[in-house]
């Protein structure tokens, strides 16, 4: 039957695919360095969610922040008492 022949041909095509010649080396490297494991998916998802949360938090805080009122508070100092020039100009004191 055509269907069975097509399935057989499909399977034959897949069976012709060979693994990478370095696969054994890759496996041995992973076994010899057990610390180098791929992060599980939930970790990647958690990392992505954390970054998104940090960005949104930044935007939120940026919107909430209201800058300090810019009314200028200057200090008016009359230093005429400190430097009493008039004192030196009094001729009668000489």
């Amino acid at each position, binding site marked *: 039957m055509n269907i069975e022949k097509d399935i057989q041909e499909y399977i034959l095509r897949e069976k012709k695919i060979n*693994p990478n010649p370095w696969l054994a080396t890759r496996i041995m490297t992973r076994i010899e360095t057990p610390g180098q494991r791929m992060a599980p998916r939930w970790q990647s998802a958690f990392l992505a969610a954390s970054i998104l949360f940090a960005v949104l938090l930044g935007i939120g805080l940026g919107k909430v922040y209201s800058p300090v009122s810019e009314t200028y508070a200057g200090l008016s100092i009359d230093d005429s008492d400190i430097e009493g020039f008039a004192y030196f100009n009094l001729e009668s004191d000489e």
Partner: protein
Amino acid sequence: MSDQQVIDEILLGNQSLFRLLVEKYQSMVFTTAMGFVHSKEDAEDLTQDIFVKAWESLSTFKGDAVFSTWLYRITINSCINHVEKKKRNIFLELAEEWMNKLFNSESTAKDSQQQMEETEQEVAIRRAIDSLPVNQRTVFVLSAYDELSQKEIAVIMQRTEGAVEQLLQRAKTNLRKKLAHSVGN
């Protein structure tokens, strides 16, 4: 050197001998994985994971069964888990695909090319195999991809030969039904 001798040596501390087992059985594991995932990259990753699992549990191998049978069991369990996990993580898969499209136009181009090369007929066959119930799919893959006899499959799956034959017949009937309208016309 027999498999059992190699395993004994490994358990005694000669760990580099594990490479002999990897080199001997990698094609077998890869072919089975291909039957479940239909992608070279996924099958390679799966093969790697399977050998790491075998390595980690090598001390539990008692030698009651042949090493290849033991490895087949690990392979099948890992493949089924991978497929189930993929089904559950479909949302993450879509997100990943979207991210790839966004940041990696080269890989997208390759994917599109691969998709174009895969005819409608091939997609239909792949989907039909993937939609089989787990036991039927396992028996079908072991029979069609690994060319194992029903007796060997029965030992691996710890079932009777009659049960394996029945599962295989059902798998073939289901495939014929599913593909009746899309293939061979």
